[in-house]
């Protein structure tokens, strides 16, 4: 048994009820959804576990504004969703399928995966590439921020016990995009990747109208690669343009990693992965 000071478990049935508990208990409370790694790292000041698994935040649906994914969907739900299989070339479902193993995918939630924003977590780069928005509830009001804000250091800490991530929204325009994802790790089920890349492309008549490329694992947090995106945008789909974009990505990643020698190999790997994902997104 891991030493901790837990005295109470609460099972709120609604988001307002969960927020009231969090606001009242502040740092003495911790929110647990799927569990996975979180239950093994409870801070010593925590006295109450707020188990939010009963909240009605388990949905995957589409409306006029786009795709809506409830924060309590498991990674496995994303992997198996027919709706996600047909969205942006199935890149969200594909990314979910790369994550860890069947048991962890069945327990871990998408909300936990993106809120923890660990560099190795698999879902942040795909939502970053698809220009998603993070929707959270605070003080009885629903607020939305670009997904990239969620990954900024301190953003979740600043909001702390006042808010709860409720869903992720992906713009409707991305439905017809093409997408692909690839990661490189010691074994397929190993959580820690050397590099993980996502390409989401808006293609029109053999030309890349818009490119969204993201990398993760080798950086402290997932990041978009605007220079590599510029190397693709407006260009015809070809091996050459994919090469040019991957070279730009390696240069960009080397800058982002401070040209650290320890990251040089990971940057090269990311370049290869990115070229593959671009070609896969273009040609299926």
């Amino acid at each position, binding site marked *: 048994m891991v030493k901790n000071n837990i005295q109470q478990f609460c099972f709120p049935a609604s988001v307002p*009820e969960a927020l009231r508990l969090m606001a009242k208990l502040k740092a003495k409370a911790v929110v647990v959804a799927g569990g996975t790694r979180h239950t093994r790292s409870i801070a010593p000041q925590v006295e109450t576990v707020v188990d939010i698994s009963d909240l009605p935040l388990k949905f995957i649906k589409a409306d006029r504004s786009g795709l809506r994914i409830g924060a309590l969907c498991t990674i496995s739900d994303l992997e198996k969703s027919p709706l996600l299989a047909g969205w942006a070339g199935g890149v969200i479902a594909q990314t979910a399928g790369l994550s860890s193993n069947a048991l962890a995918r069945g327990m871990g939630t998408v909300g936990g995966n993106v809120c923890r924003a660990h560099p190795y977590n698999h879902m942040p780069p795909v939502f970053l590439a698809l220009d998603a928005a993070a929707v959270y509830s605070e003080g009885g009001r629903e607020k939305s921020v670009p997904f990239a804000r969620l990954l900024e250091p301190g953003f979740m800490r600043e909001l702390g016990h006042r808010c709860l991530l409720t869903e992720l929204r992906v713009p409707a325009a991305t439905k017809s995009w093409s997408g692909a994802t690839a990661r490189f790790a010691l074994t397929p089920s190993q959580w820690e990747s050397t590099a993980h890349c996502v390409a989401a492309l808006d293609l029109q008549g053999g030309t890349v109208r818009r490119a969204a490329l993201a990398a993760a694992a080798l950086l402290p947090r997932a990041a978009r690669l605007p220079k590599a995106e510029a190397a693709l945008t407006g260009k015809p789909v070809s091996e050459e343009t994919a090469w040019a974009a991957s070279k730009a990505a390696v240069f960009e990643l080397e800058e982002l990693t401070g040209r650290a020698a320890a990251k040089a190999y990971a940057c090269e790997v990311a370049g290869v992965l990115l070229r593959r994902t671009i070609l896969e997104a273009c040609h299926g």
Partner: protein
Amino acid sequence: MAKKSGRGTLTAEKGELEIRVEINGRPRCLRVAPGEYLLDALRREGYKGVKKGCDNGDCGTCTVLLDGKPVLSCMMFAAQAHGRKVTTIEGLGTPSQPHPIQQAFVEAGAVQCGFCIPGMVLATKALLDENPDPDEAAVRRALDGNLCRCTGYVKQVEAALLAARKLQGGKQP
């Protein structure tokens, strides 16, 4: 007014929580330490088929079904099972009347030391409940969180496919 939770709040008294949980179809009331993991609580209550392996969510030997879904019992607090249904390997069959999945594992020769088998069998049950006719890839994917250090997984995959046929009344592939 906000809807009240069906599971409410559990507060420790004298360092213990009282949880109500249905284990293998029987309603049980367990006294657990607040920080106790489901794995440890189940083993203490006599469900020794739930194996303690890595204790870190990596090996899958502690797999149980929570409301029919496979979970790592070392990664969740016992209190999180309050108001829910847990199935352990003891709830599947008996030595004299094994479950068809257990029988398939025996017939396929999928058991060596046996330590990983309860988790494998339960993960297989969850798969076959959802997909009664899986192909080999689906079986391998469903069992990829259950590690076995004795075999090369071939026999266990064969066992899961055999179990699927048994549960479908002996239908041949």
